[in-house]
């Protein structure tokens, strides 16, 4: 009996050997499939609370991006996510995103929205009172962004500034600085000491003459001046931060002009970032695959001014109730991932519900706008992220 066993074992030895090899090879191939995701993950900065959802069956085709989509490994193409029990621990440690000290927001839930303002004055008292009003409405430990939009770039009497809304009077950056200081004073007095405000001082890319590289640099210098003032003793830097902002809309000006402005800003930014709170008007969306951005803009242009520039970040307008804006910006983000290896990490969402209540138009409520963009970008692991800010603009 013993001999028979040995004989069987001897006769089937090579079978066992190849069997072992086959099993190991199978594991290797299986791991290879998993490694594709590791490869992709190396290019997708994972955010701490980044939500993940499987791609939707209704996910629109991105035929225009097909040629740019990278496939990292030979003969393996992943259209669906796969989960395997063993994952090699080769993912980069994600950069910890500073989180507010407020009670953590449940994943997938919109944050409380702040109110941003189109500015038709640089009156100091008006700003001071506005700051107080805003400060009173802020809850303890809230982290919020507020845009003060001063209108289109302007240059007059040797000074850079804007033509404010309403009167279209010229206001220099010096006048805007003083007005913003008034806002900050009012806010500081009334807001909880644990709250964090990012105050984005906005202009736009509208106009045929004054949207220039020099204006962008002057805007950055204005932001720097305000941040220096905030940091000067007695410091408010733990509660207020000033950023630049531009409402860049393809329908308003050409891409080269707008790129010149953001390059100018970046050249003088000195660490002060800006937020693009513009649109992607006429960009393709699920209902119009053949749409093209206005004035010859390309995805590269939109990505560049919204994320590509070192100091550029984005709080896009998500206005249309049908989800068109969310789809348009999702595609810009996907372009960034496909071509530059990094999706746009939208810092927030801007809606105009209060503005439409004042002037009559149909638009998303703040939670609807946030939900549209959040769901859209999280329908694809390549663009998935949490969106921390939500603001609604009014007059």
């Amino acid at each position, binding site marked *: 009996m013993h001999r028979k066993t040995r004989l069987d074992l001897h006769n089937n030895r090579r079978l066992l050997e190849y069997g072992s090899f086959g099993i190991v090879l199978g594991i290797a191939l299986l791991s290879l499939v998993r490694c594709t995701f590791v490869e992709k993950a190396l290019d997708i900065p994972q955010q701490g609370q980044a939500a993940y959802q499987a791609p939707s069956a209704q996910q629109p085709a991105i035929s225009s991006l097909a040629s740019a989509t990278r496939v990292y490994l030979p003969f393996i193409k992943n259209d669906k996510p796969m989960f395997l029990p063993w994952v090699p621990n080769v993912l980069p440690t994600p950069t910890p995103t500073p989180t507010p000290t407020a009670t953590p927001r449940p994943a997938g839930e919109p944050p409380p929205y702040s109110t941003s303002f189109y500015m038709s004055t640089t009156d100091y008292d008006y700003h001071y009172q506005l700051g107080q009003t805003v400060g009173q409405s802020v809850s303890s430990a809230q982290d919020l962004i507020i845009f003060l939009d001063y209108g289109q770039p302007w240059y007059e009497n040797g000074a850079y500034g804007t033509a404010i809304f309403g009167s279209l009077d010229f206001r220099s950056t010096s006048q805007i600085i003083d007005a913003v200081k008034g806002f900050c004073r009012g806010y500081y007095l009334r807001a909880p000491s644990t709250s964090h405000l990012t105050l984005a001082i906005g202009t736009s890319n509208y106009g045929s003459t004054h949207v220039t590289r020099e204006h962008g640099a002057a805007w950055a210098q204005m932001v720097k001046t305000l941040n220096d003032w905030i940091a000067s003793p007695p410091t408010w830097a733990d509660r207020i931060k000033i950023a630049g902002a531009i409402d860049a809309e393809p329908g308003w000006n050409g891409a080269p002009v707008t790129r010149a402005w953001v390059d100018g800003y970046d050249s003088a930014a000195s660490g002060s970032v800006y937020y693009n709170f513009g649109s992607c008007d006429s960009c393709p969306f699920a209902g119009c695959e053949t749409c093209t951005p206005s004035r010859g803009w390309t995805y590269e242009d939109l990505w560049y001014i919204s994320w590509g520039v*070192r100091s550029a970040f984005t709080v896009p307008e998500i206005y249309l109730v049908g989800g068109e804006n969310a789809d348009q910006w999702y595609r810009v983000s996907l372009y960034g991932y496909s071509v530059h290896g990094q999706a746009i990490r939208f810092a927030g969402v801007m809606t105009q519900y209060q503005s439409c209540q004042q002037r009559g138009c149909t638009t998303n409520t703040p939670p609807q706008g946030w939900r549209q963009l959040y769901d859209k970008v999280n329908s694809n692991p390549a663009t998935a992220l949490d969106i921390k800010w939500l603001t609604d603009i009014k007059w």
Partner: protein
Amino acid sequence: MKPQNKHTLHVVLWSLLGFAGFIVIAIVIPLWIRSQRTSSQPGQALDAAEIERNATKLAVQATAEAFPTSEIGIQGIKPLSAGELTVTPEATAYAPIQGSVQAGAGAIVEVQPPFPSSVYRITNAWYYDSEQGTERTFVWAGSYTRQGEVEPGIVVIQIYKRSEMNQAAETTVYDAPQGVGALTVTGAEGMRLTLQSEEGQTLYFDLAGRQFMQP
């Protein structure tokens, strides 16, 4: 060596060989292919500068959104700066808009409309001041924004009052006759505006009567 031991050795060796194969197939080859792609297809893959830019970008965002702790210095009310002490009050009357072209009782301007381009695509505007310059009326010309569709022409009338911090006291939209696309103000006679559609039609808008008129 006993046959059993020899067999065990074979199994171990084959397994090690399989593992080595796994390492080569799963890690070495993909990394090699990627490095080749990086060097040979700069339009498709990330170059070193772009990888560095992506990493820097995340760091900049983290810094931009971070706030230092409150124990960073003395806090309190800042002293008023020179600019804040000498704030110029708003003028009581509107000043003419730089770059405007006189037309009829008002002037034509190309300025940023107070509407997002996702709602209205404004081409230009005509304005006039009244009430000793304390009230300003704008007539914005353009179209609705209908993405992927024909965009019907409109004019939007807004009235601003200086005393109300330039807030619009009224905003009213008037649709152009059916079939007319985006409009541009080309001239004015008194309070009657001449508008040109993108199809080349000439229309008139009577501001006093608030209606489009036949030529």
